């Protein structure tokens, strides 16, 4: 009980605890506490992520929903259940370090084939992406049933059609995908920024992509174009010597 009471006297981040406006402040604190209770109850009651918009609809007009949710998620940050943001929605989930509590036989995690996993990650990082592009990246035709399995799992979906000849269908990931892998948004995909920075999320081969071309044979090693060598070094791509290709 004591903690609940204490929560009420925590001053708001954006308000000074001005003693002159104590009454107004106390009412505001009460309102905030009530808003938190409502948001908490709504999200807690649902197994699926609840949209922020839907929560806002149940709160008094003018409530700073962003702040309510921020305070709540901070409040639950160290608890056994955490309040997580999933693509503009909110969900309570057990803390990851407590996974040992749940019996193994209760686990319901689909086991994906290596191929399906690759298609999933390519779809996630390259979306919107067409099947032809996925095949381009993997260098192999997508076997029947791979996309099917992912569509059925609800992790990927048909997003639309590319405005190119043939109007191929584009694929992307779903909210369930974010929820399942504990991602707040697509930008949180592991390594997203580095991959983007390295130009590896391009479906086409970028024109400025430089890799070393090894010398044709040992004799030619000394005749390498110095400008090319400089280019390579500049890009951090050093040419190995030609020992391997004998």
């Amino acid at each position: 009980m004591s903690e609940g009471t204490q929560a009420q006297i925590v001053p708001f981040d954006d308000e000074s605890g001005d003693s002159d406006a104590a009454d107004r402040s106390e009412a505001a604190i009460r309102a905030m506490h009530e808003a938190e209770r409502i948001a908490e109850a709504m999200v807690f009651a649902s197994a699926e992520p609840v949209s922020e918009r839907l929560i806002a609809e149940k709160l008094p007009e003018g409530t700073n929903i962003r702040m309510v949710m921020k305070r709540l998620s901070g409040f639950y940050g160290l608890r056994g259940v955490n309040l997580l943001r999933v693509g503009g929605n909110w969900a309570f989930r057990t803390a990851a370090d407590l996974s040992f509590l749940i019996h193994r036989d209760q686990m319901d995690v689909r086991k994906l084939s290596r191929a399906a996993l690759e298609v999933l990650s390519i779809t996630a990082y390259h979306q919107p992406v067409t099947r032809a592009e996925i095949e381009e990246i993997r260098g192999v035709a997508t076997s029947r049933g791979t996309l099917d399995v992912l569509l059925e799992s609800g992790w990927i979906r048909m997003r639309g059609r590319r405005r190119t000849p043939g109007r191929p269908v584009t694929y992307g990931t779903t909210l369930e995908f974010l929820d399942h892998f504990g991602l707040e948004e697509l930008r949180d995909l592991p390594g997203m920024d580095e991959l983007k920075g390295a130009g590896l999320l391009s479906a086409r081969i970028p024109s400025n992509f430089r890799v070393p071309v090894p010398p044709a044979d040992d004799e030619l090693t000394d005749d390498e174009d110095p400008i090319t060598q400089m280019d390579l070094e500049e890009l951090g791509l050093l040419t190995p010597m030609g020992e391997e290709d004998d």
Partner: protein
Amino acid sequence: MVNALKKQSVPVGAKAPMDRLWEDADSVDRGLSEPALVIDIDGFEGPLDLLLHLARNQKVDLARISVLALVEQYLVFVDRARRVRLELAADYLVMAAWLAFLKSKLLIPQKADSDEPSGEEMAEQLAFRLKRLEAMRDAATRLVNRNRLGRDVFARGNPELVVVEKKSKFDATLYDLLNTYSGMRQRQSVSQVTISRRRVWSLSDARVILQRLIGELHEWTALEHFLIRYLSDPEERATAIASSFAATLEMVREGHLEIRQELAFAPIYLRRGKPQEGSVSGDNIAQEVKQNV
């Protein structure tokens, strides 16, 4: 995915066999009397996957691979696979052709005014694709190792709110819709096919036709040769050959026909019967022809 004949049993899906292959490469070159080569490409998902594995074997950062060495290794692999009459899937051969072209480009000085991509550009393209594939593999690994819902973190076990947002009174996803449509159309089309499209020669049909033709068969004549007027439709070929062959066996037994086949899968010859001992056993032929058909 990949059709490979295995000379020896090797663990499926293991990468180890490839390592062994390349470690063995020198010794294989030295002596022609080496034991059968162990090749297993079951574990590889297409030529790019194989190339990535070969690149890994150079034991350097992907950015520093020797493309030419990689090309060589791949071509040696394909060459070797062919020498042991290994059947490679077409995309491995397409990649081999492209790599052979790349190799020639890399070795022969570039014409400055050429519109075609230079060898260097092609090599860049290859290296980029390998790097991108590897990046996606790494990403996939990192993805599955995240704390996953239902494995590491859990939702409310006893939710009180069934559906939070009432957008529509009915629940259906695009996937439901497309899956239902495809399944239904497919079912309907398949049932139509089996009823109306498939034409089968019955044994008695075949016998009537054979009997009508039998007067012409003074010399040894190939079964296919005199059925040729019926074989214009490729879909009918199998049933025509199977049924008329079965009919000939019956007629051989009755002494109306003689039948001869030099070896398995060779043409089957027929002529008008002169009943005699020691004609080819019909059962054996039936076995072989079944495979043929």
